[in-house]
């Protein structure tokens, strides 16, 4: 480090506040006093205590500024000169890091490892923690809100046969009590089954967070036997149990926040790549959730005295496919063959 008594002048340009006219000038720092004089032995333009002036941090080779806020600015290309004059003050650790090859290599490794770590471990762990800390009441309020907005947009009054709906409500109640008898059941869930006419989403069943299950009229048309519908209901109850809806909600919020945080330093293209990766990983999370719901749902169906394989028949009827279909990277649900195997295993476990 150079001593503060080094008084080689630094050449630069001097501007008075509000003036765009540069005055060629020389800056020296002597006994904690910053003095700027006109070049070529001209008069002193400014004199301030060293502690009162602001020195911009060094950044690559861009010009350096020494500033008395509201009064004057001194600008110079001589970065080394400024560092010498101010005894390294203002050079800053950042600029040293940015210019050092070992530091850059460490940074590259750190960035790559932590980006992988965040997406593979950090995000799922944080999402699960957030899910576990969300109270049931909040989950129910979210479900009530979603239900209201769905009712206002996609949903119409159900047109399904009333006696069939009553029978299904009974089957649902039996499944719920079978669920509540399980030692691992969550205690504070309030289950509720509703029927809606929703041509936009076709034959479908939804599990909103907090215990709200919705079945569409189209599903009832496709699945003629109540036992198949009951198997679907068991699957949805399992979704509620595992809080999959909330997990998906938090996860997409987390991915959004991650992109927002890094946004400033990714190019638009790299951002796209991250978003595409997030979509793919959302699909894989969705497949995992479905498998989990299949397993738990099959156990519930068996506990309620239903045939667990009815879910498979229901799925076959819904997709019109046979059990040979395999799951792929691009599907949100596992293939039927995989699901059949998982259900068989889950019921065999008991």
């Amino acid at each position: 480090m150079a001593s503060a008594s080094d008084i080689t002048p630094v050449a630069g340009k001097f501007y008075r506040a509000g003036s765009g006219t540069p005055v060629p000038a020389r800056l020296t720092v002597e006994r904690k006093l910053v003095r700027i004089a006109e070049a070529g032995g001209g008069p002193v333009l400014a004199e301030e205590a060293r502690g009162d002036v602001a020195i911009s941090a060094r950044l690559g080779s861009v010009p350096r500024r020494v500033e008395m806020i509201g009064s004057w600015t001194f600008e110079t290309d001589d970065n080394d000169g400024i560092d010498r004059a101010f005894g390294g003050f203002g050079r800053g650790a950042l600029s040293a890091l940015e210019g050092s090859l070992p530091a850059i290599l460490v940074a590259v490794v750190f960035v790559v490892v932590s980006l992988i770590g965040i997406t593979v471990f950090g995000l799922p762990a944080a999402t699960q923690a957030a899910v576990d800390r969300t109270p049931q009441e909040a989950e129910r309020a979210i479900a009530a809100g979603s239900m209201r907005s769905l009712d206002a947009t996609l949903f119409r009054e159900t047109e399904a046969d009333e006696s069939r709906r009553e029978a299904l409500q009974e089957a649902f109640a039996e499944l719920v009590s079978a669920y509540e008898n399980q030692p691992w059941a969550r205690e504070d869930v309030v289950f509720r089954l509703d029927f809606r006419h929703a041509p936009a989403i076709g034959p479908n069943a939804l599990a909103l967070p907090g215990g709200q299950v919705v079945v569409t009229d189209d599903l009832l048309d496709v699945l003629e036997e109540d036992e198949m519908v009951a198997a679907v209901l068991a699957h949805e109850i399992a979704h509620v149990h595992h809080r999959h809806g909330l997990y998906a909600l938090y996860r997409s919020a987390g991915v959004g926040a991650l992109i927002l945080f890094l946004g400033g330093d990714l190019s638009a293209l790299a951002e796209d790549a991250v978003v595409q990766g997030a979509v793919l990983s959302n699909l894989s999370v969705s497949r995992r959730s479905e498998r989990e719901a299949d397993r738990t749902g099959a156990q519930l169906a068996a506990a309620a005295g239903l045939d667990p394989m009815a879910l498979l028949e229901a799925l076959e009827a819904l997709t019109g496919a046979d059990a040979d279909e395999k799951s792929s990277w691009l599907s949100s649900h596992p293939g039927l063959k995989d699901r059949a195997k998982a259900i068989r295993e889950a019921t065999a476990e008991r």
Partner: protein
Amino acid sequence: MTDTSTTAESEQPHASEARLPFEFHGKAGEYFGIWIVNLLLTIATLGVYSAWAKVRTNRYFYGSTRLDGDAFHYAAKPMQILIARLIVFAVLVAFNVLAQYVPEAGVALLIVFFFLFPWLISRALRFQSRVTRWRNVGFDFRTDYWPTFVIMYLAPILSVVTLGLGIPVVTKWTQEWAYKRFSFGDRGFDVQVPLGKLYGLFGGVFVVGVLLYVGALALIVGPIIASSQAGLEGDTLPASVIAAIIPAYFMMLAAALLIYVYRAGVRNIVFRELVLDGNHRFDSTVSKRKYAWIIFSNLIAVAVSLGFLIPWARIRLSRFLAENTFVIPGGPLDQFVESVKETQGVIGEEYVDMEGIDIGIGL
């Protein structure tokens, strides 16, 4: 002063006058260090550092851009940007939570945002302008509400209802709206964009674009029709279709690049008509083909390098644009700058910053 040769080169517009080129001195190697340290600290501080990262990045790019020997300066304070980001983040979180629980309130809030947005945009542009400085003088942007509203919402509608044929009109409105509000100190910019030239540019781009799309479709659809007529059946696509997919994909990509060709052309047209304080003029000589090539090859380089060539790509683009931008002073530049008055006191203590909004120094 840099190159101020006054040798006459006939034919080229403005060729007989002294043209001051913008120069870019940024280096990919130097910026890589800044970029990776920014990323490291942003991750290590869970995003908080991103505000400092933005200031360092902009300081580097502005400070590496010079005109008549003097560098531009990005004067925003990291705290301003951090607070602006925290406000945006808090509003987004509050909005999402509210929309989950009470969808009606979410819709009401959306309407509020809709009317708030033009105000925010013009404030953000003013912030962006004011923190851009050259020779100790800040740029400025005059804000007003309804013209911004028209540009933001009504202009895009016009380009849609005219099936795209109104795009040059929208371009003219938007460019004139922005530059007529932009000033260097107290000296305003002005521009009258010639609509005929914009339509000439647009016509060319439009025809090429249509040809590329039609060509791509023909490549794909042709074999499908041929194979269906031949009575082929089955799930798999015929080999001739698969073979056509790759060239068709590249034709689509080329069509997407036409947007950049159009932008480069607009930049050239606008800069040639741009006037500062009534007598200083500008020039832009961005070759459309070269610009599209740089955008395309940057894309490929960044993808292949898993993002590590982002610094190189940014430096390359900035250098290309700076080297093709000129100021044609209508009189001695030093005397002009001497007479310019600052419009702002101490740098605006505002907290309105938005990502992706940039008219900056028009580079």
